[in-house]
């Protein structure tokens, strides 16, 4: 690095350009932005003092990105038009690269400047549409416009690689792509400057700073302040991030500007009572979160206003999360990168899951309580779309901010607007879990089905399939283990004509042997011809006198009716009985038949160990009754869910 040492043109103090790429250095004595030109050093004016944001980064900090070491050599602080600041750190790499490390809401984005692709003209700022894909970016990046805004350079420190003019305002567009790809179009110049990179973590950058724990320690500490309206005490849980706070004593809405409170307006009496008190803490899977704010919002659908409340949760190490309470259902919500969501007409996909659209409406902020990290106000309007894939819900909020007239370009007919797209992922939380987490009791139970409420008995289908599998396995095992069937008796029998239609003929067989623990099938066959034979059978244990009765009915009829032949019944019938104790048995048959004047000819066969599916079928039915009832309930559950949607669409129940 070539080091240029000089004197500040404003105060005469020593200034040093360590990097050859630095254009501006901030005088450490008088905070003047000192620019180096071809001929001389130029005083660009004084920058404001930096707002303490609790950043774990600092000038002089070293790290490594993709094997190349870097040092943070400068920091610029920019004001967001919606309130709040973000930091941009300038990383000077050992191989000559210059990186921009943006830090906002505890997230980090490392980008590098790229030249525009030859022959490609990027859209002008007023042509940009939120959500549009920007074509023609270098590196074949496919990024969508996630935010358009206006930034004002307010403070800086160290060396800055561009001509930073204090108070200068410029337009920008933040771009988001899949897997954390990030970009910015800087409209401070025309054509816009292109910065592309990724969302990163400090670990990705090889930054292990002892400063971070020290910062975090300070961040955790809440600030005790007094309301400028009523002088009552109030506490800021996130003093370095809060933009708005309501006074718990006089219900005034206060602006938080660099730790200073100023009165904005008196709020109307709260129309909702937060169920979870501000200041409550709860242990969630991500860590311990504190409720720092609550707001009530509403949508108007078909002339009916629906209200819900949202609780802002905060942990300095985790950031902001939301707990949304609607119709006595609860959701834990966190932001996701817009570029990771792929939206089509009625679906959105995120992390390989498809979400179906459920609602699309204008949401309005009704009332606020506590602290917020943006300049929230009652009446704030966003377009909100909800997509569901139980137990998750993807929500998209699109907001627009009209640019004030003094900031409009003089020759443009179209008025400039800025805005942003925010995507969030909500996960359904059962009421009991919310009660446990925040140590509150008696929360009301829901009576409706929430858009992303998971069907609670889906497990039964898995259990059912598992039991079916086990039953089939058991059936096969039994079939294999029991061996083949065995014939124990066979005889042709002639029954002599009956004396009258009510008479019977009785037959007793010679003894035969039954084995134990084997079922029994008795089959009789008779060549009946448009007639019937009815047999009452008994198996009699010749040694113990045990009698097992069974019926056999053979009937076979056929003919031609209306030119079509028909038949009914058959010439064979079987009866099954459970196994009998092993021993010697006699078969008794008492028969009647339709053509009683003629003899009846029968063939009777008795077998053991016969494969018979009735028991198996009965077991399958017994296993399926409960799942079948639960399936009917499941269908009803889904109908109730989608009856609340403006898109219907409950054609299946893919809430796995």
């Amino acid at each position, binding site marked *: 690095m070539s080091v240029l040492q000089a004197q500040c043109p404003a105060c005469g103090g020593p200034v040093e350009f360590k990097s050859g790429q630095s254009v501006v250095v901030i005088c450490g004595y008088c905070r003047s932005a000192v620019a180096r030109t071809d001929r001389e050093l130029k005083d660009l004016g004084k920058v404001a003092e930096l707002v303490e944001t609790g950043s774990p980064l600092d000038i002089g900090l070293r790290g490594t990105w993709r094997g190349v070491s870097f040092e943070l050599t400068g920091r610029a602080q920019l004001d967001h038009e919606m309130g709040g600041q973000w930091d941009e750190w300038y990383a000077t790499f050992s191989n000559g690269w210059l990186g921009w490390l943006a830090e906002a809401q505890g997230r980090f984005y490392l980008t590098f400047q790229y030249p525009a692709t030859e022959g490609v003209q990027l859209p002008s700022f007023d042509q940009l549409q939120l959500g549009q894909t920007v074509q023609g970016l270098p590196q074949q990046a496919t990024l969508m416009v996630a935010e358009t805004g206006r930034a004002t350079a307010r403070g800086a420190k160290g060396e800055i690689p561009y001509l930073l003019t204090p108070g200068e305002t410029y337009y920008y567009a933040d771009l988001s792509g899949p897997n954390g790809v990030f970009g910015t179009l800087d409209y401070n110049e025309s054509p816009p400057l292109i910065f592309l990179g990724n969302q990163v973590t400090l670990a990705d950058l090889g930054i292990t700073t002892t400063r971070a724990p020290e910062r975090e320690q300070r961040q955790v500490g809440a600030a005790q302040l007094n309301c400028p309206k009523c002088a009552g005490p109030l506490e800021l849980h996130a003093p370095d991030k809060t933009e708005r706070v309501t006074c718990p004593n006089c219900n005034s809405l206060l602006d938080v500007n660099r730790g200073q409170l100023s009165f904005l307006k008196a709020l109307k009496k709260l129309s909702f009572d937060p169920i979870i008190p501000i200041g409550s803490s709860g242990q969630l899977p991500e860590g311990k979160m504190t409720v720092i704010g609550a707001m009530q919002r509403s949508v108007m659908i078909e002339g009916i206003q629906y209200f819900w409340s949202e609780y802002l949760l905060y942990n300095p190490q985790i950031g902001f999360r939301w707990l949304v309470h609607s119709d006595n259902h609860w959701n834990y919500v966190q932001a996701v990168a817009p570029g990771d969501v792929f939206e089509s007409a009625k679906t959105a996909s995120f992390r390989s899951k498809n979400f179906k659209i459920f609602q699309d409406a204008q949401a309005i902020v009704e009332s606020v309580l506590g602290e917020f990290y943006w300049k929230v106000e009652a009446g704030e309007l966003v377009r909100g779309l909800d997509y569901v894939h139980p137990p998750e819900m993807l929500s998209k909020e699109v907001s627009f901010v009209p640019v004030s007239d003094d900031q409009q370009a003089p020759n443009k007919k179209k008025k400039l607007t800025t805005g942003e797209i925010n995507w969030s992922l909500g996960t359904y939380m059962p009421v009991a879990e919310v009660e446990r987490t925040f140590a509150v009791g008696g929360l009301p139970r829901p009576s409706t089905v929430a858009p992303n409420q998971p069907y609670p*008995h889906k*497990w*039964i289908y898995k*259990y059912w399939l*598992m*039991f079916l599998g*086990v*039953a089939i396995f*058991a*059936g096969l*095992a*039994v079939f294999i*283990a*029991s061996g083949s069937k065995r014939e124990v008796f066979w005889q042709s029998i002639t029954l002599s004509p009956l004396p009258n239609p009510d008479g019977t003929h*009785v037959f*007793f067989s010679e003894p035969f042997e039954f084995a*134990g*623990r*084997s*079922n*029994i099938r008795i089959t009789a066959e008779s060549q009946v011809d448009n007639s019937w034979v009815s047999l009452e059978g008994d198996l*009699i244990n010749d040694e*113990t*006198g*045990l*009698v*097992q*009765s*069974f019926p056999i009915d053979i009937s076979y009829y056929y003919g031609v009716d209306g030119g079509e032949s028909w038949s009914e019944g058959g010439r064979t019938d079987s009866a*099954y*009985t*459970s*196994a009998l104790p092993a021993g010697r048995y006699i078969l*008794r048959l*008492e028969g009647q038949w339709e053509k009683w004047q003629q003899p009846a000819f029968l063939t009777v066969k008795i077998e*053991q*160990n016969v494969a*018979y599916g*009735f*028991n*198996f079928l*009965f*077991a399958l039915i*017994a*296993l399926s009754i*409960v799942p079948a009832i639960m399936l009917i309930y499941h269908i009803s559950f889904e109908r109730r869910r989608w009856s609340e949607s403006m898109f219907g669409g409950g054609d299946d129940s893919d809430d796995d």
Partner: protein
Amino acid sequence: MFKKLYTVLGVGVISLYTVGAMLGWELGTSSRRQLPPDARQNGYRSFHFWHYGLRGGK
């Protein structure tokens, strides 16, 4: 709770089926009867016995 109940039902049904199959049980088998000792001694092949003695009339 419901999960446990269905698990008990499933295990019970499969166990019953397996045990039943191993022992040769068949659903729908009519109940068994016992010939009286005197009938066995005196012979049980008479029409009268089966129609009025054992079954008590048809």
